[in-house]
């Protein structure tokens, strides 16, 4: 039998004005298990807490009910107070007689009656409460970063700087991501490669960082502090320990028709290639789909050329299993496919390009060596039209409903750079809104207009059609209320960005959620923006939502701090209100496993002693470190084997009984 103390808070007049607290205190003494009751002006105050602590000690209370404000407000306060004097914190329950009673009722009698019932329900529950102890589990002091773009690199560097090991898994042959493809960055116009490549080198050189390039995460199991990931290291057909990255093989390779991914397919590369000059790791890789040796068994020029004897046609994919304490998802983005936007004629006309393609056309390391030449006839374009919001902010099936966030700024950047380098070029920008919320962003955009004379037209383009070697652009100028027609040489589309297609697969693998646009969902949009809902999984960069570089880097560092905070602990304390399966009742039917959103339930064959009968049964096992305590499994379980600590079937039924009595 419990010895329960009931404390009724006046909350000044917040409660006491509407609820007769004395009456509630009297009624409490009539409840089973209650040995003490008192009312007090402010239970949450220092002296109120002292009253509670003293009574626990004096009366040897085994349970406490505080009738006060919402448990969301002060449950933690009172539990901490109880713990400080030796009572298990989970023996404290709150009856919410403020938000759910005194504040919503006017009639004192009615409110008092309800307060008594709420108190009674809490007492009924405490009568069945059991001391709960939070489980502990060890933390593996290593982090996994999925994705080696600027987000992944920054997160990894920050974690490594804090002294923890970190692995980067990048599916492409080099890290660097989208930022490596960019020419200049807004709003400072500094060279993208100049700020990114040193970071790539830092990451590669860091003793705590291991880079698995050309690799993918295949499987993840485990839970916060103790994940196990299987990494598939794809065959490069080049021994990475021997390859020096000299590039001789790439020059000799006779197969040169594969589209160059790094240049957005604007030119071609050899079958054995190094993605770009500053690639990290700087190693050659053979594309078996383009390689003559793989197609016909002949050739073998690269093997002959390589002095380091690094070519290995027989290399196989390698599976590596590593344990991690935390995982950061930094899978980044892609530009959407524009095949369904036939009004812009992207697929039909080589001179209609995306902004990312323009980046390559303007980059000194790009296909044109940095001279802006239009793809069709390699001439200088004299009239360029930029179209904003292509595929963003729309509601057609091909559109994305969100704003891609970065387009306004990079278009300002592009138009500015073009006007500076080629002052004889006319630049038009069709915009719906120009969005420049960021430090120095508006100033940057105004410079494009005021200093560089870029023509911003408020309106959208309805059609782009080829017309005598030019691109006839039909747009509207809403301010003039006119339709405008421009014969342009080059049309640049600010295509929407979307999460990389791997995000969905990885979210499933990590049992974390994605939204309708396949962006990973943060645990809380305001308060926990870099954590996923699954403990130990963190989000970095555009996989969580559109971001520019400074934001991405900021979030990457924030995620790193969260990871470091986790790895700094030797052990983590789990939520004690978790599900538990009664071995003797479990049928092993897997219903609970199927509804668990966290994959916290697994099955094992175990010998049980059922009243003297020993047999091996298939039993559900709840991993307390992973379980978040939602209780979905408890209802799915037909035998009632699965119960939720802190909210047991019997406790809830006791509350029901007390309310209906």
């Amino acid at each position, binding site marked *: 039998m419990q010895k329960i103390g009931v404390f009724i808070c006046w909350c000044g007049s917040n409660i006491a004005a509407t609820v007769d607290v004395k009456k509630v205190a009297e009624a409490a003494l009539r409840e089973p298990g209650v040995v003490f009751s008192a009312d007090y002006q402010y239970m949450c105050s220092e002296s109120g807490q002292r009253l509670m602590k003293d009574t626990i000690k004096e009366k040897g209370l085994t349970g406490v009910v505080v009738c006060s404000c919402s448990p969301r407000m002060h449950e933690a306060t009172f539990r901490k107070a109880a713990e400080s004097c030796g009572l298990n914190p989970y023996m404290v329950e709150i009856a919410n007689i403020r938000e759910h009673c005194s504040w919503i009722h006017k009639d004192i009698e009615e409110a008092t009656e309800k307060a008594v019932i709420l108190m009674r329900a809490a007492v009924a529950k405490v009568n069945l409460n059991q001391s709960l102890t939070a489980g502990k589990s060890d933390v593996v002091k290593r982090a996994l970063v999925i994705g080696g773009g600027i987000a992944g690199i920054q997160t990894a560097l920050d974690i490594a700087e804090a002294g923890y090991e970190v692995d980067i898994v990048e599916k492409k042959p080099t890290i660097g991501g989208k930022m490596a493809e960019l020419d200049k960055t807004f709003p400072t116009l500094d060279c993208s490669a100049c700020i990114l490549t040193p970071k790539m080198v830092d990451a590669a050189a860091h003793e705590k960082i291991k880079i698995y390039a050309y690799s993918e995460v295949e499987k993840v199991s485990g839970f916060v502090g103790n994940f196990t990931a299987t990494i598939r290291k794809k065959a490069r057909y080049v021994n990475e320990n021997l390859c020096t990255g000299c590039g001789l093989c790439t020059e000799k390779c006779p197969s040169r028709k594969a589209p160059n991914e790094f240049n957005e397919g604007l030119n071609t590369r050899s079958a054995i290639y190094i993605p770009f000059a500053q690639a990290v790791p700087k190693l050659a890789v053979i594309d078996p789909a383009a390689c003559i040796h793989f197609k016909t068994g002949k050739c073998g020029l690269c093997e002959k050329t390589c002095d380091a004897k690094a070519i290995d046609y027989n290399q196989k994919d390698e599976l590596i299993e590593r344990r991690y304490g935390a995982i950061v998802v930094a899978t980044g983005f892609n530009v959407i496919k524009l095949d369904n936007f036939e009004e812009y004629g992207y697929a039909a006309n080589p001179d209609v390009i995306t902004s990312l393609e323009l980046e390559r056309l303007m980059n000194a390391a790009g296909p044109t060596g940095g001279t802006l030449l239009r793809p069709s006839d390699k001439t200088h374009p004299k009239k360029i039209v930029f179209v904003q919001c292509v595929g963003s902010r729309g*509601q*057609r099936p091909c559109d994305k409903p969100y704003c891609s966030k970065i387009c306004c700024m990079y278009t300002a950047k592009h138009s500015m750079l073009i006007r500076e380098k080629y002052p004889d070029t006319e630049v038009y920008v069709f915009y*719906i809104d120009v969005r420049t919320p960021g430090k120095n962003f508006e100033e940057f955009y105004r410079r494009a207009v005021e200093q560089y004379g870029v023509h911003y037209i408020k309106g*959208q*383009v*309805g*059609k782009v059609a080829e017309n005598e070697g030019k691109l006839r652009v039909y747009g*509207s100028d*809403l301010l003039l209320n006119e339709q405008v027609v421009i014969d342009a040489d080059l049309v640049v589309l600010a295509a929407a960005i979307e999460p990389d297609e791997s995000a969905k697969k990885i979210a499933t693998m990590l049992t974390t959620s994605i939204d309708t646009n396949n962006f990973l969902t943060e645990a809380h949009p305001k308060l926990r923006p870099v954590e996923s809902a699954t403990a130990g999984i963190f989000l970095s960069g555009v996989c969580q939502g559109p971001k520019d570089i400074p934001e991405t880097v900021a979030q990457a560092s924030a995620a790193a701090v969260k990871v470091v905070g986790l790895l700094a602990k030797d052990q983590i304390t789990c939520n004690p209100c978790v599900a538990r399966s009664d071995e003797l009742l479990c049928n092993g039917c897997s219903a609970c496993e199927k509804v668990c959103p966290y994959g916290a339930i697994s099955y094992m064959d175990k010998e049980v002693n059922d009243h003297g009968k020993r047999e091996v049964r298939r039993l559900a096992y709840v991993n307390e470190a992973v379980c978040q305590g939602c209780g979905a499994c408890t209802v799915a379980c037909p035998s009632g084997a699965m119960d939720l600590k802190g909210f047991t079937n019997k406790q809830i039924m006791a509350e029901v009984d007390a309310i209906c009595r």
Partner: protein
Amino acid sequence: MTDLQKQIENIKRISGANPEKCMRCGKCTAACPNYSEMEYHPHQFVYFIENGQLDRLLKSDSAFRCMTCFACVERCPRDVKPAKLIEAVRLTLIRRKDSNYLKPDEIPQKIDEDLPQQAIVSAFRKYTK
């Protein structure tokens, strides 16, 4: 509810379109093949209906200038369906029965040689019912 408001509600109902969804990009007008013939352009139809300035549209013959080619509907990224709204304005005018609308037999004289075939065909379809 005033008469005008009722009419606007009716237009929304007939068209099944929601002008509030418009984000004012002007793509409808940019895509309009009969732009030069219209006093008010597709985006203005949307804007005026949303803004309660329906009377301006009712006084204009722009609704009859629309060839119902649906380029605007096709292009609209927000699924506002300007042509449907124009169609509803037209119906509102027709239902007034005060004969201030364009008669079908007037259309041939007004047809421009440069008009897209699609627009002519759909206009023809519209007025030969």
